Each structure stands twice: as structure tokens, then as C-alpha cells.
């Protein structure tokens, strides 16, 4: 019982940050048709930026401790506002209308570049920004002690998901984005500024990656290599959920979270690949992922 509870809670906690990151990836794919390999690097940049900002803020004791959270949010926003337009306008737009696989290669190139850029800016040593992690204290469930911050993270994931759902389904701007996802050519013919939607969606995707990075930063040591783990995990999440599906990303994040938590508690040696095993199994039976209707094959 205790073990089941531990797996359940760990799984949901793991799923929360995975969802935030993966939903950005799936949104960018839905709108721009780009499976962004560099998404993990954007996560890493967000984490580095937040770790630096938090270190600076708490190091100088510049204000009330709780403002640190706002600072993390702010650093994710700054990263998105700089890198989003820069990558979309500066690089990606030259490659639109190319094959999906070629676009993966383009973002793979971006990933290589961003990897070295982060090493140049932040160096290769680890950053720690643990202050915000302990700030909310601990709570216990079923005799298991947890850090409250982890539950705040679940709240953040829920808020992100709800906001995104509301924005997409209940606002005019969101409806326009959905129209572009459905058919960009018809949307353009109807007078939608597709270029602007692309820029907006990509920047939002960068923001979500950086947000995930910024709020995960206090839990981990931020160091080179995290981007790879993140991209492979969020790839698995969006592919399991169905590319371009927000609900799919949520369900698949839980799936992956539980799988990882179960592996860590029950078969530790399988932790490295259980996610890919789940992904391969899902794809073997539902090639389009869990939440994507099969598209008719067109010429």
C-alpha cells in the first residue's frame, strides 16, 4: 500500500514538469509542424537563467524570499521573449514547407548550437538554486514525507494546462491558432496572419520549455547534459500522447511519470529505458499516438 502510494505520488510529481515541457513541444508541432529537437536546450536555458537569477537574488538577500518564485517566472519569460523570435524569425522561417524529417534535422542543428552557447555563457560547472525548494516546508502522506514545493509544481502544471485549454478553446486568438493547426493554407486564405501565429506559437513553446526548466532548477543540479534527458523524455511523451494533442500530452505525461516511478521503486535497472519501451509499445499498436486521429494519407 505504502509502495503503491509512493509510486502514485512520485509519478504525479514527475508528470507535472514533464507535462509543462511536453505541452510546449506538442503545441509547436501542432502549429508549425516542427518536432523541435532543441526543446530540451530551451528547457536547459530556462533552468540556467532561473538558477543564476535565484542565486543572485538570495545571495544578496535582496528582498522577501517568496519573490524568488516571481523571479523564476520572469526569467522564463525573458528567455522566451529573446530566444523565441530570434530562432523563429532568424532561422526556422527559412525552412518552412520542408519535409518534417528535414525540420527535425534543422532543430537538431539548433540543438547543437544552443548546447555550445549555454556552455559558453554558463560554463560547464553545476549550478544549484535550492533556496526556493525548501521555502514551502514539508508535508506527509501515508507516512511518507514530501517537499511541498513538489506539490506546488503539480499546481503549476494544472494551471498551465487549464490556461492553455481555456486560451485555445475559449478565446478568439486561440480559435485562430486552432484553425492554423487544422489547415494553414485555408486559414491564410481566410485572412489569418499565419506568420504571426507561427511566431506567437513558437515563442509560447519556448516559454513553456523555459518555464519547466526554471521551476525544475531548484530540484536538480543544473549542468550540461540535462537538455538531452529532457528532450528524449518529452519526445516520448508527445509521441505517446499523439503529436499536437494537448490532452494527449497530459495523459501521456502521467503515463510516463508512473512508468518511471514504478521502475525506480520496483525494477531500478529498467529506469533508463522503460519510457522508450512504453513508447515503442504504444506506437506498435497506435502509430499515431493515443490521442490523434489517423490522418488520411495524401499525395
Amino acid at each position, binding site marked *: 500500500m505504502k509502495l503503491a502510494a509512493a509510486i502514485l505520488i512520485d509519478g504525479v510529481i514527475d508528470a507535472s514538469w514533464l507535462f509543462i515541457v511536453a505541452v510546449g513541444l506538442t503545441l509547436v508541432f501542432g502549429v508549425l509542424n516542427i518536432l523541435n529537437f532543441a526543446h530540451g536546450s530551451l528547457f536547459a536555458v530556462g533552468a540556467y537563467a532561473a538558477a543564476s537569477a535565484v542565486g543572485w537574488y538570495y545571495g544578496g538577500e535582496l528582498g522577501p524570499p517568496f519573490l524568488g518564485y516571481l523571479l523564476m517566472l520572469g526569467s522564463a519569460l525573458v528567455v522566451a521573449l529573446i530566444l523565441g523570435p530570434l530562432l523563429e524569425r532568424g532561422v526556422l522561417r527559412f525552412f518552412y514547407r520542408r519535409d518534417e*524529417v528535414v525540420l*527535425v534535422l534543422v532543430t537538431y542543428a539548433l540543438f*547543437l548550437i544552443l548546447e555550445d552557447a549555454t556552455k559558453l555563457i554558463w560554463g560547464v560547472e553545476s549550478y544549484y538554486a535550492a533556496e526556493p525548494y525548501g521555502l514551502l516546508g514539508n508535508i506527509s502522506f501515508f507516512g511518507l514525507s514530501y517537499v511541498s514545493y513538489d506539490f506546488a509544481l503539480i499546481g503549476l502544471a494544472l494551471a498551465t494546462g487549464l490556461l492553455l485549454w481555456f486560451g485555445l478553446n475559449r478565446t478568439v486568438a486561440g480559435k485562430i491558432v486552432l484553425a492554423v493547426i487544422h489547415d494553414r493554407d485555408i486559414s491564410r486564405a481566410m485572412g489569418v496572419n499565419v506568420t504571426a501565429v507561427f511566431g506567437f506559437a513558437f515563442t509560447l513553446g519556448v516559454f513553456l520549455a523555459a518555464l519547466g526548466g526554471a521551476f525544475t532548477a531548484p530540484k536538480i543540479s543544473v549542468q550540461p547534459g540535462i537538455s538531452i534527458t529532457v528532450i528524449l523524455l518529452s519526445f516520448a511523451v508527445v509521441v505517446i500522447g499523439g503529436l499536437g494533442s494537448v490532452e494527449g500530452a497530459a495523459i501521456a505525461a502521467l503515463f510516463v511519470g508512473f512508468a518511471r516511478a514504478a521502475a525506480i521503486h520496483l525494477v531500478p535497472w529498467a529506469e533508463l529505458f522503460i519510457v522508450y519501451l512504453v513508447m515503442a509499445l504504444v506506437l506498435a499498436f497506435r502509430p499515431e499516438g493515443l490521442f490523434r486521429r489517423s490522418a488520411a494519407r495524401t499525395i
Partner: protein
Amino acid sequence: MAGMLGTLAAALIAFAVLALAGFAAPNWLVLVATLAFSKGLVALGIVALMRGGLVSFGQGTFYCAGAYAAGLAMRSFDIGDAALLVALGALAGLILGLLIAPLLASYRGIFFATLTLALSMIVYGILNKTYSLGGSDGLNLHAPTFFGYRPAGSQQGGYALFLFASLVTVIAAALCRIHFDSVRGLLSLAARDNEIRLEYLGASVRFVSGINFVIAAVLAGIGGALSALSLGHIDPDFAFWATSGEFVFLAILSGYVSVTAVFVAAVLLELVRSFSSQYFPNTWQGALGVFLLLIILFLPGGLGSLVPRLRLGAKGVQAPAGKRE
């Protein structure tokens, strides 16, 4: 038939030139070229897939299988002959390829790419935890013999291995060229252009893709065994995604038009790597990224598309290949 004879003649000449060049070249260059050829073989497999419109991001699976097959044969059965070890690597690739091909042959585009990536990461994960195969430390290999000949020193061993790798490479390249120009090989190009049309003409796209997949797996197995012999060490990183990514990079760089271009690209990349990782260890990957972007933007058909373009350009004809990516 004339085309086939021409290919074989070109292969013979290429081997003779390589053998002479390797004799004259300094030792480090011979080592770099050996490794480049073994990686080029894996990239050649991706080129075979690319001709059918597929890109595998997980060729590390078969590369690793070939390397471990050679390594384990050497360790457990005391097989030391390079030819036998490489044949075992090819066999490992073949068996694994035949097992996986039916599962993957009906996937397309990014689903194919991500599934192959997932498979390679599963292999990577399992190998890292399989301590009887050395775990994350991997295994060491000793120097091989060549058809009974045991080289005296490391310099001679390096040249002998280079000669052997060149032989394997030239044969594989010639066979691939002949296959690419055959009816079955040309079906791949048709599948790339329009799968539905090909189906209506009576050919099975799934079968074509499956064959290409097995060819790619065998080539990757051979490449893996050769790499294992030339590095003298194998570890799970052979199946790591970055290794597979490098093969894709090579295939994009060379394009699917020319077989020779693959190996030219491989040698170039190995040279650039050994220089830049020495002088700019922290920026060379980024430089590689910029280079990749430039290739995709300005030379979507890869280096190989330059050759027919030059040849046809002289006659004032538009090059047919390399327009599509």
C-alpha cells in the same frame, strides 16, 4: 551491364589508390581514415533508407550490435580474424534487421525516426545495466589478425586494418551502387517521390522499405565491427542517440545521389573533428550545427549532388537530382 562493369572497375581503381595512399600517409591519418570508413558504411545504410524517403535516427542500434558481436566473439570464442569478426558483425546486423524490419517498415517520416531512436535508447539502457557485457565501461578488444597474418607492430597493424577496411568499404560501396541502379533499387526513388503511385503500379512500399532497412542494418553491423576493431574498445555509447545523430549528419552532408560522397564526407568530418576537438573543444559541436543548417539551406541534395550538377552543368542541362530533400 556496362554500368555494372564500370562500377566494378571504379571500385578496383579506388582500392588500388587507397592502398597506395594509405602506405604513404602518416599513421594518424590512416587511423582517422579507418574510423571514417567504418562510420561511412553506417551512413551509407542511412543513404539507402533516404532513397526510399526514410531517415533513421537510431542506426546506433545496429552499429552497436555489430560492435558487440565482434567484441563478444573475440572475448568468448577467441576469434581473432578481422574478416570473420566483420562477417559476424554483418550477421548480427542482418538478424536484428530482419527481426525489426517487419515492425518498422510501415512507419513513415518522424514516426519512423522517433521509433528507431527509441529502439536505440532501449539498447543503450539495457547495455548500460548488463554487467556481464561490461556495463557502462564496455569491453576492450585486442588487435585482430588478417586471414592468418599477424602484424608485427601497431603501425603495421594500423595499415593492415586500413587496407582491410578499404577493401570492405569498396566492396560494400560497389554493391550498393549496383543495387541502387537496379530495378529494385530504383523503386526506392519512386517510393520517395510518391508512395501511392508506386502502390498502384503494383509494387509494395512496405517491402521496399523493409529491404532498405535490412540493407541499412547489415551495413551498420559491418561498420560497428570495423569501428570496434579500429578503436579497440566498445561501450554502450555505440547505441547512444548522439552516435546515431552523427550518422544522420553524415548522410545529410553527403546526400543520396553519390555513394563515393558518403566516404568523402566521412573522412572530412573525422578530420574536422580531430582538429577542432583539439583546438576548440567547447565550440566545435556548435560549428557542426551551423554547418548542418547551411547544408540543408543551400545544398539540400548534399555534397553528392554537386557531382552530377557539375557534369550536367557543362552540357547546359539542369541536374535532375538534389532538387528535393
